């Protein structure tokens, strides 16, 4: 077996073979020589003492070529140097410059996402903007009870899920962003199938969706975010048209324990209109199993009309936010009391179910 060789680096290489004591003495002498010099150096920030070429380089917090300065639309424009010049610039030109600046930010990666992958810039100016005509003109969404959604701090919005494709979550998101006085972003919780699917997973993260698990829900609620959850999941959106507005089982009540643990209120949210956009009259179960999907819907138009079948029916929507259920009085330990969790889950479910029946009674027709 070869012996270990001790090579002092500071001197010429003297490979020593032999007694370990001799090696240790030589090293000790070297160490003693260096101690005096080292003692003069500061101990607190060793990285600045290493004498490497990068030592002392500290990030200033601003990337080279300050992006904030260039980000302003019209900032780098030669034609709009002063404030006076900016006034003469026509509106369309300023818009063009803003679009160009936006494209540049996207192309150079000069934007921010949070830990969950939420990209507010893209969500507000592209993704939700594309959905806004659907919200305003197509489904003509009417919102009620927005005062029940707190203007700040965490809250859990619990809604009924329907419509084959989760358009209802996008509409709820728009309702809170556009019509709520505080213009709040809704952070949604999605099933893990969402994050397995290409493109969908990317869009979901960008629009502020994260995985429906207790860790994420609690983390968001503690941050003071507005969290949206649809506890029926695929059972809700994939149910046949004959069972419309009949609430399915509300998961395992994980959302209630998340609210209890963080002491945030639960706001029941009832959505009317989403059931009719793609009425499911059949389910291709075998195909669904082969594709690994929870269901493959058959609607009056899909798959018969091909891509045209993807056009939703223009139903009239109502989104009502109910009275918040306060959870802070129970204390965070109550999350471990299954009976309380079940009772609260039922309470939320009943509230939504009754509101749905009431709204359906008030509704004159599906489309008006």
């Amino acid at each position, binding site marked *: *077996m070869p*012996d*270990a*060789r*001790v*090579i*002092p*680096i*500071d001197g010429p290489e003297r490979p020593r073979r032999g007694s*370990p004591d001799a090696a*240790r003495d030589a*090293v000790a002498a*070297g*160490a003693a020589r*260096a*101690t005096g010099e080292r003692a003069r150096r500061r*101990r607190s920030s060793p*990285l600045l*003492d*290493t004498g*490497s070429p*990068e030592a002392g380089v*500290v*990030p200033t917090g601003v*990337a*080279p*070529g300050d992006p904030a300065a260039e980000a302003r639309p019209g900032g*780098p*424009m*030669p*034609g*709009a140097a002063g404030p006076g010049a900016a006034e003469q610039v026509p509106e369309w*030109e300023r818009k*063009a410059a803003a679009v*160009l600046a936006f494209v*540049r930010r*996207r*192309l*150079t*990666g*000069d934007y921010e*996402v*949070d*830990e*969950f*992958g939420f990209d507010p810039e893209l969500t507000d100016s592209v993704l939700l903007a594309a959905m806004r005509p659907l919200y305003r003109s197509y489904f003509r969404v009417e919102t009620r009870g927005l005062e029940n959604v707190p203007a700040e701090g965490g809250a859990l919005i619990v809604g009924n899920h329907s419509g084959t494709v989760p358009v209802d979550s996008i509409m709820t998101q728009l309702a809170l962003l556009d019509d709520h006085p505080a213009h709040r972003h809704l952070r949604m919780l999605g099933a*893990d199938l969402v*994050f*397995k699917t*290409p*493109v969908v*997973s*990317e869009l979901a*993260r960008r629009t502020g969706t*994260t*995985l429906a*698990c207790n*860790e*994420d829900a609690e*983390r968001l609620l503690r941050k003071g975010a507005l969290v949206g959850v649809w506890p029926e999941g695929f059972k809700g959106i994939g149910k046949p048209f004959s069972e419309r507005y009949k609430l399915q089982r509300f998961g395992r009540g994980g959302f209630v324990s998340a609210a209890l643990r963080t002491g945030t209120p639960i706001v029941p949210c009832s959505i009317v209109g989403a059931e009719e956009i793609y009425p499911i009259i059949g389910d291709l179960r075998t195909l669904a199993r082969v594709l690994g999907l929870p269901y493959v819907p058959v609607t009056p138009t899909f798959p018969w009309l091909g891509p045209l079948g993807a056009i939703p029916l223009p139903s009239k929507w109502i989104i009502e936010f109910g009275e918040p259920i306060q959870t802070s009085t129970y204390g965070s330990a109550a999350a471990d009391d299954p009976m309380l969790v079940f009772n609260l889950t039922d309470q939320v479910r009943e509230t939504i179910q009754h509101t749905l029946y009431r709204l359906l009674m008030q509704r004159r027709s599906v489309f008006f």
Partner: protein
Amino acid sequence: MVTGVSRYLGGRFTQLLQADPDITRVIGVDVVPPRQDLGDAEFVRADIRNPIIGKVIAQAEVDTVVHMAVIATPLGAGGRATMKEINVIGTMQLLAACQKAPSVRKLVVKSSTSVYGSSPSDPAMFTEDQEPHALARTGYAKDSVEVESYVRGFARRRPDVAVTMLRFANFVGPTVQTALTSYFSLPVVPTVLGFDPRLQFVHERDGLEALWRATVGDHGGTFNIAGDGVLTLSQAIRRAGRPTAPLPQPVAPWIGQLLRRLHVADFSLEQMRFLSYGRVVDTTRMRDVLGFEPRYSTVEAFDDFVARQRLHGPLSKDNVTAVERRLVDIVSRGRVGA
């Protein structure tokens, strides 16, 4: 004693330690001589897979062992089999030697956040106590998981030794070379179509400082080490000014293997998963218990890496801004002309 000193971070860390007046003696261990100047530190050419390491510890009465000889790139180690042997068998031997050495009071192990794996059912952020959803079955991640389990076994058998495990996010910086840095250096960066994972980076200087703190301080436990904030993969590639080549998920592993064969880049299956689903860790404990505040955020660390390694591709910020200016110029000139 520091293991793995001939590799870049090990060498830099040894320089750091020997500059500390309170540390009287630094011994570096590796199988090949160090490329960097280790200053007054001693170098012992020994293989940690060999029981000789026990002799070194006993002779020098080592009180603190910093284990950095865990290798992430099979190409660098000379094949996956060698890499696994160095990582797993090396750690076992080293820990066996430490267990027999009464002088050892502290053990610091450089681990990685890859122990959490990458899967679509992961929570948005991992804390140190969370178990991975999908256990790593291959590669570096599996080695890291095994190394950690041996370290935990050691901590049980030697409760008098303070054991600190640092789980580092991916290193970037002016000099460090990893599989991920060479990935970002590709002229066209392949990605998995339809996925944009969230990534976290730690600057090499921050990583060294965290190791230093864990070595001189007195905090046992496991800590995630990462810069603040996250970058998505597409954002990172754009910041490097490079075009992307999205590949559909089913063919991505084939392309990865091809690139590996051609020695263009080192893609393993776990790396593919990482580039699909990403991973973000919670660093609250790093701040509160270890008392360490990284100087570079994830974005700053990555920007520093891009700037120092001169990675600016054809879509660099300067080029794009120049095109934007020209377009704005054309628009305003059209108005003046009319």
